């Protein structure tokens, strides 16, 4: 399909007896902001981590940027940027050092100074990442996801645990990269931000994709026009 950057076909992944992902198929188009929502344990992170190449699906095919992830994992990693749920950095590393370190892993580099200024992290460059507040830690992780100027940015619950202002500010940052035409995939528990910022929303329940559409369409297909994503969530994503 023209403009498709991610294609999942019938993905399955189990941990022991638990089926984390149970037959998910999904396509993401270039330049799209796709939100993934669902209860804790529904399979959001596993699905994202399969697309990032961090986990191998038990069955099914994954194509990222037109390449099969099994055969071209290394090529794909050069062109994506990821942010995990945990900050996932060394205990004693400073912001600036982390940026320089991660930048060194790639051949293609985005100007670090530009990232630093865009995300406003200049005042924190010489601070230890672990001593920063949640919001600044998340910005640092976002900055690390950008060092290779990726085509696709994966963000696993980027705003979880942030205060409302920090959430707004982080979204302002994310939206800047969306305007550049980057494809962005993220998971979130906040229905208001999913509704406001995502072009499409995929709802995952017990490892299955139960709905995937534009927020407006999801709302109008299930409810009255005055509904919100929260209503959709309660109706579709929550177990009866």
């Amino acid at each position, binding site marked *: 399909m023209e403009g498709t950057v991610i294609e999942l076909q019938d993905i399955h992944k189990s941990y022991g007896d638990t089926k984390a992902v149970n037959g998910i198929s999904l396509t993401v188009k270039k330049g799209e902001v796709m939100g993934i929502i669902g209860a804790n344990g529904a399979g959001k992170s596993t699905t994202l981590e399969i697309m*990032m*190449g*961090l986990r191998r699906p038990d069955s099914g095919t994954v194509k990222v940027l037109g390449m099969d992830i099994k055969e071209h994992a*290394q090529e794909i*990693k*050069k062109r*994506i940027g*990821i942010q*995990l749920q*945990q*900050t*996932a*950095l*060394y*205990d*004693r*590393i400073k912001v600036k*050092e982390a940026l*320089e*370190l*991660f930048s*060194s*892993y*790639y051949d293609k580099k985005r100007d670090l100074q530009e990232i630093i200024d865009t995300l406003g992290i200049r005042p924190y460059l010489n601070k230890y990442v672990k001593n920063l507040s949640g919001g600044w830690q998340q910005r640092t992780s976002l900055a690390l996801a950008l060092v290779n100027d990726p085509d696709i940015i994966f963000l696993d619950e980027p705003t979880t645990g942030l205060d409302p202002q920090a959430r707004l500010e982080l979204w302002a940052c994310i939206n800047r990269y969306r305007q550049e035409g980057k494809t962005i995939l993220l998971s979130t528990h906040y229905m208001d931000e999913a509704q406001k910022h995502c072009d499409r929303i995929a709802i995952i329940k017990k490892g299955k994709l139960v709905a995937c559409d534009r927020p407006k369409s999801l709302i109008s297909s299930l409810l009255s026009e005055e509904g919100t994503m929260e209503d959709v969530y309660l109706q579709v994503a929550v177990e009866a």
Partner: protein
Amino acid sequence: MNTLLTHTKMELKLFFRETLAMLFTFIVPAVSFVVFGLMFKSNTYEGGLDYFQAYIPGMISIIIFTTAFFSMGLQVVIDREKGVYKRLMGTPLQQNAIFTATIAKGFLAIYVGAIEILLIAKFYFGADLTPNPFEFFLALTFCSVTFFSIGFIVSSLAKRMQTALGIAMVAMYPMFFLSGATLPLESLPDILQKMAVAVPLTYVVNILRDGWNGTLFTAGAVMDIAVLGGILVVSTLIGTKFFRWT
């Protein structure tokens, strides 16, 4: 290559920021060496060795142990638990670069720690250093690699930082006191001397003394080398089987 170099440099930089690692690698062994030296420098030990011939190798054995268990085994578990490796798997960085950087850190810690002990011996105590530097270097490197493989087991079997720390702490007492690294084995009660056979660091102490005193390539060293070689092979197999990056 550039990536590997940058990653290794960062690993070393982070190592020098670990207070606990600094304490166990560069402070505790050096201070123990000085204090024991002031008390026992005119003693003679088993095999007719003087304090320096017996305890320069002894203190360096302690550095090998703490490096392998704390700076390598435990640190890998901490980094893995924090999700560092998982995050790195999402970059083009190769896994063997992480592995190489960790080994480089281990060697650096041990060589620098060893040089520190040698400098103290020479310039503070005015002691004679070994006439067999090459043999000693060879012994040191072999013992280091063997203990890296034991540290590798720790990081393979311990899932959580607390577990790895527990293993290192429990191992510390026999390694320090029943290996001959600090207390002379011949002064210990019979039962403890027998237990020393089961402490891997005992063989390190023996081989380092052999290297230092020029007896590494003699029949007396064969048994110790064989035991450490066996440990190296078995640990590497166990570690390779159970190690997980995430």
